[in-house]
């Protein structure tokens, strides 16, 4: 099926199911993405997994007590069981020497085990109405009803409103709980409320995508969004948008193939989005960081070689051979060659038959590096009282990252010194 068929099918009234399911999945993933942003920031990604497994016994108990297939009772049971699981995880953590990961794994498997026991009990008791309970295990996104979509819209609206109202509190407890306490926020209440929102979202979402994949709906969009921005508002928006679009595309893919499950496809699309963000994020992305590393590497090599040439010239040599530089810096000839080539291209020096001659522009650049190096040495010896032989190594690293502003500040602080601690002249 082509995308055009999909679009025309989508807008035609005959394919009402597709319309309902697309909107429903989009809204659910949006709601999960928004509230999941805080789950991610609080480094509780795996608690989503625990909640989604834990709702099962709640649903089963609700069914056993009432004997009817009422989504509201199910939801109430699911929320209670989810809250209980969160509370248990916290309780065991404070009252025993067990580590969080063990407690999470134990809680989720035992809750789920109890759920399966109850579920098989219901099945074996021959109650005809039980067939709907299975959807809590594996989800049934493809057979979403209008009532489900209403529920998903409701949770989306509730999440957005609550987060907007409590944004400051939620952000504070995500980054610094103690600071929030100090400001007089009711941290306990805010935490419990956030947990409640998460549990409600998970309890509703589990019916659509199943217990295992629900954790992805919370975490994956937020993980992707985190690589694109530092602002929490933008992260919320991006995460919600990722969720919405993925929900939509997931439905489209599962609709176009026969027997394709919706929930897993949503997760695959979400993961693709997150992966793209992780790779191509402007500042934090993997590629951006590799680039930065490479450009730093080039800068450091350039500056080191310039400095060497300048220092050799300072000792009174007019012509410097490449061999001398190799002796000084321990570079391989190939590396030195590539660095010199680059410097020649930048018009900082000239090379004639194994000799290197620095021009005025090169000298200015070299002086800048040496000035930063010597200023830093002086600063360290003056303000940290470091011994003379401890200064060089530190300055060797820092000279490449001192910005013009810091340099200006250093000069001011040290009152434009003439000599460094080793009595070498500081060139201006």
């Amino acid at each position: 099926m082509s995308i055009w068929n999909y679009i025309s099918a989508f807008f035609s009234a005959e394919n009402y199911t597709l319309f309902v399911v697309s909107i429903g999945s989009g809204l659910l993933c949006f709601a999960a993405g928004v509230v999941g942003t805080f789950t991610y920031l609080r480094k509780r990604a795996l608690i989503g997994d625990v909640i989604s497994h834990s709702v099962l016994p709640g649903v089963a108990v609700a069914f056993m007590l009432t004997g009817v297939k009422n989504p509201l009772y199910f939801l109430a049971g699911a929320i209670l069981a989810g809250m209980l699981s969160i509370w248990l995880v916290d309780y065991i953590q404070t009252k025993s020497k067990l580590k969080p990961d063990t407690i999470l794994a134990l809680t989720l498997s035992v809750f789920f085990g109890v759920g399966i026991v109850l579920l098989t009990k219901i099945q074996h008791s021959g109650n005809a109405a039980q067939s709907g309970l299975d959807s809590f295990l594996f989800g049934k996104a493809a057979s979403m009803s209008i009532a489900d979509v209403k529920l998903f819209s409701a949770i989306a609206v509730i999440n957005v409103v609550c987060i907007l109202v409590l944004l400051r509190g939620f952000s504070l407890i995500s980054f610094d709980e103690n600071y929030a306490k100090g400001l007089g926020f009711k941290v306990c209440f805010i935490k419990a409320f956030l947990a409640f929102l998460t549990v409600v979202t998970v309890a509703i979402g589990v019916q659509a995508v199943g217990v295992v994949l629900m954790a992805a709906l919370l975490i994956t969009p937020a993980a992707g969004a985190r690589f694109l921005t530092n602002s929490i508002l933008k992260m919320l928006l991006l995460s919600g948008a990722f969720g919405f679009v993925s929900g939509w595309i997931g439905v489209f893919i599962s609709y176009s193939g026969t027997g394709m499950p919706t929930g897993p496809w949503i997760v695959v699309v979400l993961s693709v989005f997150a992966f793209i963000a992780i790779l191509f994020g402007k500042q934090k992305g993997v590629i951006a960081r590799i680039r930065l590393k490479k450009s730093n590497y080039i800068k450091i090599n350039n500056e080191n070689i310039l400095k060497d040439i300048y220092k050799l010239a300072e000792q009174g040599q007019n012509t410097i051979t490449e061999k001398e530089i190799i002796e000084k810096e321990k570079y391989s000839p190939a590396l030195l060659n590539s660095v010199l080539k680059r410097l020649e291209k930048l018009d900082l020096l000239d090379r004639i038959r194994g000799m290197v001659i620095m021009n005025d522009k090169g000298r200015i650049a070299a002086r800048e590096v040496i000035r930063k190096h010597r200023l830093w040495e002086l600063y360290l010896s003056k303000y940290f009282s470091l011994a003379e032989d401890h200064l060089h190594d530190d300055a060797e690293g820092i000279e490449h990252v001192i910005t013009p502003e810091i340099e200006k500040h250093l000069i001011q602080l040290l009152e434009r010194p003439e000599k460094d601690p080793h009595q070498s002249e500081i060139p201006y």
Partner: protein
Amino acid sequence: MNDFYIIFTASLVAINCALMGSFLVMRKMVMLGDAISHAVLPGIFIAYFLSGSTASLPILIGAALSGIFATLIIEWFTTKARLQSDAAIGVSYTLLFAIGIILISKFGQDADLDQQCVLYGEIEYVSLWLESVFGLFLLPKQSIILLVVAVILIIAVIWGYKGLFITTFDPNFALSTGVAVGFWHYFLMSGVSLTTVVSFESVGAILVIAFLSGPPAIAYLLVEDFKKMLILACLIGIGCSIGGYYSAKLFDVSVAGSISTFIGLVFTVVFIAVRFRKSKLDVISA
């Protein structure tokens, strides 16, 4: 005889999981075990698809490799992409699980595999596939594989005890004395993958996690010495298998679910007992 076969199979899973789980608990990596147990799904599917069963050893190793693949992805996310570790686990295993489900629902009819058996196994039916061992006695096919893996794991733990122990309890010291920390990490992860892959068919992913985390956690609350903890965890696992099986029979419910529940009950009792004893000791010392 049926009772024996089921308990025997469950106990073997319990032993395998207790051996691996004890190390995972001490290394704070149980959730990684959880992730692997879900993430091997695509590998298991490919194994099924190629061979029609998980019974052949080369395929088993292939599936176990998919578990290691999952650890590698998680590590790539944390070290290279600098994603926080909990999210790295969450993102990777859900993706692999989703891919597994898609593969199963696309080609699953040919492979006789469904989501339900992935999550909670079919231990009730192990006695349907009996095979004779050296022509002497009959054992379920599943339990023979589990037995082989148990022997491999016991030998591996005894052989590598020193390395595993030192990298678990003092990785920095191990690193500074030149112990190959990375090797032992992947050594353990191979064991965890192998355990998960062979156990999943009989008991399902959920009971694997319960066995990986529960008995070692209970043993950890009870004893200080790690060797004792390993043995106690195995015994608790076997005990829970027996108790869980008979409760399942009594109440006519899922065996895998019942064993998980039983583990939960034992944990609750031990947890309360330890708390009670501790508070009593506190009173005395005060």
